[in-house]
């Protein structure tokens, strides 16, 4: 019997198909991606069983960090600039057009209006490093209240979401609640991470 000869095949593979797949996935991720906003502080949120999702737009975000400093951030570049103008007028600070443009790109910040000028002069990486005092919330110098009020004047649909750290002290949190309530806002969101709901077990066993 003659030997069966195995024909030699080329070792190179056609990469076109793989390339197609790679770029298809790439397109998907590029279109669905939303970059993590760089936050002024690291906040470790407590977990809860609530599964309500945060609305994507029209959110005023108030961060409370471990040391009880308060940070403020709003959506929309136009709204940011408009709110800054009103704050500037209220506190008698003037901002140049460049500073306004810079401010409209700031995701969130934790400095009083008076120090905002110096803060905006820093580069985004320096802003992360510099020690900031947080936004004043006490009744004599309630800047947070005005930020919320003016932001709401520019966009009526704004809802407040509070993102607190696990170790934030209750008095600060309570004070923030009060500030928000003073502005006639009685419902707001707490941003939390997800935790298992013990009722889920009950539910699934009930379904059987």
């Amino acid at each position: 019997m003659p030997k069966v000869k195995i024909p030699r095949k080329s070792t190179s593979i056609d990469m076109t198909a793989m390339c197609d797949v790679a770029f298809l996935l790439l397109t998907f991720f590029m279109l669905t991606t939303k970059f993590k906003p760089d936050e002024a502080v690291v906040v470790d949120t407590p977990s809860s069983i609530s599964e309500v999702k945060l609305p994507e737009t029209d959110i005023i975000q108030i961060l409370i960090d471990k040391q009880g400093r308060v940070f403020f951030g709003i959506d929309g570049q136009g709204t940011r600039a408009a709110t800054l103008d009103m704050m500037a007028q209220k506190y008698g600070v003037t901002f140049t057009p460049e500073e306004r443009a810079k401010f409209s790109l700031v995701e969130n910040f934790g400095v009083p209006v008076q120090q905002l000028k110096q803060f905006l002069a820093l580069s985004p990486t320096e802003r992360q490093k510099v020690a900031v005092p947080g936004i004043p919330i006490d009744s004599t110098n309630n800047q947070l209240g005005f930020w919320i009020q003016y932001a709401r004047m520019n966009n009526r649909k704004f809802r407040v979401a509070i993102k607190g750290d696990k170790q934030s002290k209750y008095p600060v949190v309570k004070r923030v609640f009060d500030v928000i309530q003073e502005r006639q806002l009685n419902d707001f969101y707490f941003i939390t991470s997800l935790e298992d709901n013990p009722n889920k077990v009950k539910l699934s066993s009930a379904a059987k």
Partner: protein
Amino acid sequence: MAEISDSGGGKKKGGKVRAKKMSTKIDFTPMVDLGFLLITFFMLTTTLLKPQTMKITMPEKDQIQDSTKIKESTAMTVILSERNRIYYYFGITDPQVEITNYDATKGIRKVLKEKNKRNIDQIDALRAKVAKKQITQEQYKEEVGKINADRNSLMVLVKADDKATYKNLIDMLDELKINDVGKYAIVDITDAEKELLAAAEANAQ
């Protein structure tokens, strides 16, 4: 690998100059590499999961004292304090303060479960109906609303002293949710209650 080969189309003696014949195949490997590199980048930076939230509706500031008159037998006050302690008492006039914690089996969950048993059972029955598709989500929500609005259902007042943390508050709200307590409010602590806490602490030791 690269198949752009030079097939050496040299000159023939005195003949025409011929264009080199090139292979039409291109090696895609580097392009695939690049593609996957970018995919990796986008996968790592993307935030597909939106953050979870808890919605809360606070009572109107000036209405707390007057309009929400609570029935003595349904009121329960929970005071959050340092070191994950919870002080609680039932009723309003004669507070018997007890101490517990956030433990999932022995802590506040057990207390709430016993106190709110009637509502939990009713809501569980409704959930089972939803699971069996006997009622719709809307009907379910309406029924739950009715149960919560009942004058005899438990009303929890959540208070916290200065040493409590934000995590305590969220955990407490979570416990209320787990035990289907529909009526609750976050209220300021009073001086009388601070004294009660101190007394309870002294008793416990």
